[in-house]
């Protein structure tokens, strides 16, 4: 009898504050597993933004720097330039990265900073009470769009993974989902690849993870899974949008 699945060492034995059925816990575990498997725990620094990811320091047994809202890629840039031998990753939500920190992430990506960004997209501001985010789907009801998001007044949802893939400094850009076992395994491979891009000094790598927020979507956890599958994935297609294979850009 041997254990085939146990808690990764990097994931602390602390109960999370996430709502029941929030797939954010899976994202934390994936990152912890990849850090364990690559053996980089002692030299990894995580930089969470503000939002549900803010308690990263409580859950992952690594060094963590807390960044102001949206400024995680800017802090990661400074951290990587001062400590180039460390593995630096920013960990942001959609309100943090796609709204408040848009300029920071775009310019960090355009400069080709050798950092990794894990981006959790649940199409709503989770921690602040379910306000509309730039990624909120058309027709989706939130506390600030009670009649559903209308493109005439609020515009269209923003696709960050595709947008960042167009920038020259980006080495890896992918979108994965966390609502089915198959996709969770793909997500882990994408995170591993993003960290490998940084270890091989290829440039900026970003992994967008589609996640559920059943509390602010006002549905049960299992209904949220169906909603993600039927409503989010048609608008946010999964896949790898850019993958650099050599250092030919230098």
């Amino acid at each position: 009898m041997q254990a085939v699945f146990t808690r990764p060492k990097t994931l602390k034995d602390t109960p999370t504050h996430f709502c029941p059925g929030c797939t954010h816990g899976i994202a934390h575990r994936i990152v912890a597993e990849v850090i364990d498997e690559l053996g980089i725990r002692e030299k990894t620094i995580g930089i969470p933004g503000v939002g549900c990811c803010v308690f990263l320091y409580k859950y992952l047994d690594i060094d963590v720097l807390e960044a102001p809202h949206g400024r995680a890629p800017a802090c990661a840039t400074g951290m990587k330039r001062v400590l180039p031998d460390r593995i630096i990753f920013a960990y942001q939500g959609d309100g943090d990265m796609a709204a408040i920190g848009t300029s920071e992430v775009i310019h960090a990506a355009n400069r080709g900073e050798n950092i990794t960004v894990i981006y959790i997209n649940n199409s709503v501001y989770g921690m602040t009470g379910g306000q509309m985010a730039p990624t909120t789907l058309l027709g989706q009801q939130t506390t600030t769009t009670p009649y559903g998001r209308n493109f005439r007044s609020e515009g269209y949802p923003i696709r960050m993974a595709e947008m960042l893939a167009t920038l020259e400094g980006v080495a890896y850009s992918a979108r994965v989902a966390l609502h089915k076992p198959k996709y969770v395994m793909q997500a882990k491979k994408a995170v591993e690849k993003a960290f490998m891009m940084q270890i091989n000094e290829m440039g900026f790598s970003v992994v967008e993870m589609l996640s559920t927020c059943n509390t602010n979507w006002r549905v049960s956890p299992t209904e949220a899974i169906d909603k993600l599958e039927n409503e989010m994935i048609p608008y946010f297609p999964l896949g790898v949008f850019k993958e650099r294979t050599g250092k030919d850009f230098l």
Partner: protein
Amino acid sequence: MAHIVIDTNRCKGCYFCVKYCPKQIITISKQYNAIGYFPAELSPDKKDLCTGCKTCALMCPDTAIEVYK
């Protein structure tokens, strides 16, 4: 014999393991746990059917499931 161990005091009863178990052998307990949720448990009469496929552990957002084989 493959089996899973569920940390009942960490489980928040989200039903992901119940939904994704290929053998449908996980149910929700009728007793609530220390943090006030109804946790998942292995059905006592079906626990021999577990194959140790790790699907429940893979989908558990709270890492409350350990799998032994």
